[in-house]
């Protein structure tokens, strides 16, 4: 039993505080990994790995093992497998993803059928159930979150270099294959960490939408990582509060908030870029033409 912190509504109760902690961790970690996936045009990788993680959950229910561990094992194997297929040229990026999507969900359905457990427990992992996160879940999510943050802190510059130009990175001696596999494995860890929060079907949204918003307002790569994580965390907090106020599904609400922030950033980002173009056009002074030209020149 954890001590309940003196937080204001809507986080005054223990179950909401556990949900808040788990939501914040996933809200911060998802975009950290997603920033690299979006730049590598692999935005749907998290979704594909989520489907494989579902097969892992079903295997756990069948074998009577805690589904988090079996999901983690399946997700890491699936992530490394897709990276291998992609980089060895055995399948194009979208075909490799399709393979992962359909094999994962089909495997999950078959294993769930064998376990005879297509019930509330399965739906918990498919759509998330953040309000039922217990202390042991929160600790597991926290450990996975620490792994993700530490790995990104050490590797982000090298991963950025690969995003920028993987051939030049390879020529300069960076371990491109190893770092790509590491990123795929971290994606799997992130998916599993977020499984209880928003579910395997929506977890990729938290890896992509905050990044889409951040890259419209941030100027540097480091700033994009920080802003995207801040947006992910804000989505978790606002989504949880909104869900409690109107008794909505928390996982879906968190993702909808992230989507709303993305839409807002698209408007703000477009206006800002437009303003920069206008400023740029003032130097050098454009030549005035037409009937008002003489007056303008005076």
């Amino acid at each position: 039993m954890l001590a309940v912190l003196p937080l204001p509504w809507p986080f005054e109760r223990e179950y909401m505080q556990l949900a808040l902690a788990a939501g914040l961790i996933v809200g911060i970690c998802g975009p950290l990994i997603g920033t690299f996936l979006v730049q590598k045009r692999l935005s749907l990788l998290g979704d594909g790995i989520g489907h494989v993680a579902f097969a892992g959950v079903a295997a756990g229910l069948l074998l009577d093992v805690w589904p988090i561990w079996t999901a983690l094992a399946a997700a890491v194997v699936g992530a490394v497998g897709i990276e291998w297929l992609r980089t060895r040229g055995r399948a194009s990026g979208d075909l490799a993803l399709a393979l992962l999507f359909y094999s994962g969900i089909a495997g999950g359905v078959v294993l769930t059928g064998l376990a005879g457990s297509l019930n509330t427990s399965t739906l918990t992992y498919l759509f998330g159930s953040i309000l039922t996160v217990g202390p042991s879940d929160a600790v597991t999510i926290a450990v996975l979150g620490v792994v993700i943050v530490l790995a990104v802190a050490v590797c982000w510059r090298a991963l950025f270099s690969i995003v920028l130009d993987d051939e030049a990175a390879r020529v300069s001696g960076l371990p491109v294959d190893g770092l790509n596999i590491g990123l795929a494995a971290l994606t799997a860890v992130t998916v599993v960490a977020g499984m209880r929060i928003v579910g395997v079907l929506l977890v990729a949204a938290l890896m992509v939408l905050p990044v889409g918003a951040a890259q419209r307002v941030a100027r540097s790569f480091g700033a994009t990582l920080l802003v995207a994580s801040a947006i992910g965390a804000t989505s978790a907090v606002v989504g949880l509060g909104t869900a409690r106020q109107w008794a909505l599904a928390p996982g879906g609400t968190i993702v909808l908030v992230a989507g709303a922030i993305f839409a807002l950033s698209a408007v703000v980002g477009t206006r800002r870029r437009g303003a920069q173009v206008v400023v740029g056009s003032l130097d050098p002074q454009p030549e005035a033409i037409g009937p008002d030209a003489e007056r303008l020149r005076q």
Partner: protein
Amino acid sequence: MSAVALRVDAVSFAFRDHPVLDCVSLEVPEGAFVALAGANGSGKSTLIRIALGLLPAAQGQVELFGRGPRQLRERWRIGYVPQRPVASELLPATVRDVVAAGRLARRGWWRRPRSTDRVAVDRALDVVGLHDLAGRPLGELSGGQQQRTFIAKALATEPDLLVLDEPTTGVDAESQRRFRDALVEARDSGGAVVLVSHELGAVADDLDRVLVLRHGKIAFDGAPGDLAASGVSLGVHPTDLPVWLEGIG
């Protein structure tokens, strides 16, 4: 006698049944500025990719600083600027972010930047004339400025061999001039420079050697003056150069 930065010995390569390179040999000593020219499809980029260890040769050998590409531990000694499209407007990276990435291999990719890294990045930005734009997002720059950014990234490594694959295609005159200055600076500081290009006009007076590749074979290997004497102008319009080169060999 200068040490050899790059040695390609009797290299052949084919894509399936289509021969691309046929027993190509060349040497680039340290401190040399060499251009590799040839029409589209003559095998220039394939030769460079093999020389850098990105493609395995079907036959023949490649040495970088006396070692096979996979055996060379100090890979940071090579600076490489590949062919590239213009960066996406949404790429969230400043010019400084991109140039600083060139220092990773030299200091160890897991280490944080040190003051020597910052000095090298500033110097590379100065050389290509982009210091004032260091804080600007790459996607807001012109194509020529973006190319200079990637050349600065390679220069920031402080390489002993700088290889550039078609870096000036579609680049404005100001960028061409800055580009020429950067390559001459790299050569004058003791490094070898290999430039793959159709457009050699900007650097014609600075080149030590020109190699012309035609149908996968070296058709010419000599001084720029000798090439001019055989009727080929390096200063012609880019689309004309391959036509001129058809008469070589």
